[in-house]
Structure formats: C-alpha cells, structure tokens
C-alpha cells in the first residue's frame, strides 16, 4: 500500500504521571500492572473520594519547576517537567537550538479546574479584592503549551488542542502535520491535565462516568473487565519530541520509534456517547493505517483507550475484534494510571513507543481473565514479551473526537 504521509521520528519522551515522575519510572509501574488509585483527601466527603494523583507533593513539584512555579497552574507545571525530560531525552539543547523552528503543541481537556473552584469560593466568601490576580494565567488551558514554550525558549507555533480525552493524541497529530508541512523542525508535543477538583469530579460522577467501587479502590479501574463500572479520575502529563526522520538522523539521533500515521475523525453523533457501530473510531483507525501504508493485519498491538466504562470498552472491543480480527495483543494503561483526560492520549502514545522499544506489552490492571465477553487478546496479570513492529494507540473524547496514532519500530 502506498504511503500517503512520511513518518516522523519520536526522538524523546517525558512522562509525569500517577505511576512515576519520569518515563522510566512510569513504564516500570505500568508494567507491574498495579492500579495507582488511592483515597484523595481533597475529594473527602464526595460520592467518589479517590483518584490517581502524581506521586510527588506540590512543594516538590514547585521545587523541580523552579523560580517561576508561582505563576503556573498545576497542569502547566506537569507539562513543563515532562517537556524538559523529553527534550533532554532527545539530546536537544534549548540553549543552542533555533527556537523559532520549535513548535509546542500540548493538549489539555479541562484547564485549571481546582484553582477555579478555590478562587470562586474566595469570591463568594471574601469578595473580589481577595481573588488572586494570578487566577486567569493559572486556569486558562493554553498555558500548558504557552508555559512549555516560555520554559524552553521555543518560539514557533504554540497551541493547546482541546478534544477532551483525545486532546493529547490530537496534539500529536497536529504536531505531525506541522512537521510534514515544514512549519517547524522540532515539535514538543503531548498533553497535560490536572483537573481533580471537587466540582469537576462531581460533574463526571453525575454523568455516570466514574467508578463507585469505594470498597475496592485499587480495583476500581478495570478496563475490559466484565464488572467494570466507570473510570477513575487522574492527572499527569506526557510529552514527545517529534522530528522529521532525515533531520533526526542527520544530527545523529536514534529514533525511539516512528509515528507512521495519524487518523482523526468525528462521530457527528452525540456529545458524550459513541454510536453503536463506532463508525467514526473505525474510520480513524483505518485512516491512520492508510497513512502509514499498512493494512489492518500488520497491527501487532493495540494500546486501547479502555476507560473502564461499560459502554466505551464494549464499543472499543467490538471495533478491535471487527477491524483487527487477527487478535493483536491489547493493553489498557488506564487500569494502572486512571484516566488522565486530556493527557491520556499523549501518555499512552509514549507507552506505546516504549512497548515497541522494549518488546514488552504491559498487562491491564485488575483484568483477571482475558476479557471473557470480547473476542480480543487482552494482556493480563504480567507483561508479555512480544516483538511489536506496528502498534496503534486509540484515543476517543467527548464531543465525538476519534484519534488513532500508528507507531512503528525503528528502523
């Protein structure tokens, strides 16, 4: 099949997630397959009072971010830390690069909800004079990319795609397009989210999206399990450095993997529900593979969106079984990480890169039997050795956004 778009190289990864403060620590925890959900004191008294937070106290996050942390929202800090790691991992030096040719495309689904809620309470209780002058920069979602741009001296195009739970994957697809159009030479791209506010958590609970498994918090996020009952709120950031392959190899960088194709479609159906046949998601999967010049049978592995909600997982499993009937291995990192919303697509793209590199598929946390209700090959209990040459990472978001990234091994 002819390739429609040249692949780009993934030359750097950075992760700051509930499973660890780096790509390496996150990968180890995800491979161990243990859920990171825990009681969340800030959600105390609510119907759902547990979440997956990053394992680093705010004070330590601030110390790592440094002197400008006071003016950054929580998601922005996560983005900055993950972006620094990704750029370092790529062997790039912001002091010497041509910043005008560096794009920062970091998605965010929600923005700074916790700060919004805190300051709303101050307005109500103490009046307008006691509202922080920093409120707006701390809550606007685009500061996750703006903050990375400032931190790295990246002066090329910077924007924050918002496609809800697909935002991180949308950002990567947009960044790939910018590289293909020669509108930048380096793209620092991914997603960041820190929206574990009381109100936003209640909002997701009210729509029936969250697990209520309060008596078994560690078992609450269980993608593809027969008794799944919803997702677990989470926060974090994932950042990839993308470059055109010729540029990466010319400077002696060894790509971790290739981003070979991106498929982005819309359901044009309903704000929060997928259509029964998942036609939009299927079109995204087929588009990503077509761009990569691959057939469905080339896919060795699927990094599923797998939120652990009854409807999403059933629809996605049906899609995988129908379009990829040769039973590629399937994992779902939200069992370990919870749902990091706008960061999830980027974190999972990074995990898919690591799966390809390490030839190791992480298990789905809390899934005991290989998805009895579905005809798909879920990896359970322990990592599986597999020579993954081609993998796809699924991301779907409220609004009917479907994004599929096709990643292949280098060389």
């Amino acid at each position, binding site marked *: 099949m002819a390739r429609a778009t040249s692949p780009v190289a993934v030359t750097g990864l950075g992760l700051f997630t509930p499973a660890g403060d780096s790509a390496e620590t996150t990968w180890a925890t995800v491979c161990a397959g243990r859920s990171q959900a825990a009681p969340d004191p800030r959600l105390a008294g609510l119907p759902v009072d547990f979440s997956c937070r990053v394992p680093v106290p705010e004070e330590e996050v*601030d*110390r790592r971010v440094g*002197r400008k*942390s*006071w003016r950054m929202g929580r998601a922005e800090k996560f983005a900055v830390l993950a972006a620094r790691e990704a750029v370092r991992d790529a062997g790039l030096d912001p002091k010497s690069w041509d910043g005008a040719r560096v794009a920062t495309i970091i998605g965010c689904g929600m923005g700074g909800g916790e700060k919004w809620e805190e300051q709303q309470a101050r307005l109500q209780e103490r009046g307008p004079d006691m509202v*922080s*002058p*920093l409120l707006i*920069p701390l809550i606007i979602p685009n500061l996750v990319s703006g903050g990375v741009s400032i931190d790295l001296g990246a002066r090329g195009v910077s924007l924050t795609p918002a496609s809800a739970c697909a935002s991180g994957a949308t950002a990567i697809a947009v960044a790939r397009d910018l590289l293909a159009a020669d509108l930048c030479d380096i793209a620092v791209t991914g997603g960041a989210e820190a929206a574990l506010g009381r109100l936003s958590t209640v909002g997701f609970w009210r729509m029936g999206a969250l697990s209520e498994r309060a008596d078994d918090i560690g078992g609450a996020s269980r993608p593809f399990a027969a008794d799944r009952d919803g997702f677990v709120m989470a926060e974090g950031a994932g950042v990839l450095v993308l470059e055109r392959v010729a540029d990466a190899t010319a400077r002696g960088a060894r790509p971790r993997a290739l981003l070979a194709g991106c498929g982005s479609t819309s359901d044009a159906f309903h704000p929060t529900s997928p259509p029964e046949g998942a036609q939009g998601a299927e079109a995204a999967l087929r588009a990503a593979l077509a761009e990569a010049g691959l057939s469905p049978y080339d896919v060795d592995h699927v990094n599923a969106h797998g939120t652990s909600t009854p409807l999403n997982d059933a629809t996605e499993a049906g899609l995988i079984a129908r379009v990829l009937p040769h039973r590629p291995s399937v994992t779902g990192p939200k069992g370990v990480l919870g749902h990091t919303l706008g960061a999830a697509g980027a974190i999972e793209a990074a995990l898919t890169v690591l799966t390809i590199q390490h030839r190791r598929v992480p298990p789905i946390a809390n899934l005991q039997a290989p998805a009895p209700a579905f005809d798909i090959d879920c990896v359970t209990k322990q990592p599986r050795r597999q020579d993954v040459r081609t993998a796809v990472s699924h991301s779907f978001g409220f609004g009917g956004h479907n994004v599929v990234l096709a990643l292949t091994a280098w060389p």
Partner: protein
Amino acid sequence: MHAADTYATIRTALITDFRVPEDEVTPDATLEQLELDSLALAEFALILEERLGVKIDSEHAVRTTTLAEITDHLDRLRTAAVAS
C-alpha cells in the same frame, strides 16, 4: 513595634510562595532584583494582606522598592490599625 515580625512574614512569602533563593532575600534587595514583575507584585500584596491584615499601597510597592522600605510601610499601617 512589628518590624522583626513583618520582615519575617515578607521573607517567608518570598521564599515559600515565590521561590526566591534565601540568600537573595536581604533588606536592601529591590522587588525588581528579586524578579517580581507587576503580576507577582499584585499577588505578593494579596498574600501580605492576608497574613498581616493590612493592605499595601501600590505606590509603596514598585519595582525599585526595597524590602526594608516595604517592611517600614507595612509596620506603619499595622501600628495605625492597632491604634484605631
């Protein structure tokens, strides 16, 4: 009457809230030298108001103001508040 306490509050706010390195926080340092821009100054004033109970006049907290001058200004406000 408040000087030591007022200065300690200012010092703590700069070090913990604005992450200014401790060795830079000296009485003769200006706000500009401590890298506090106009947005930071507005937040700084709010934090001090919460902790000291008095509101800094904006003309007494500009970029060239030293920490000693701010301390002096806030002390006068605090004394006046106690007297009234």
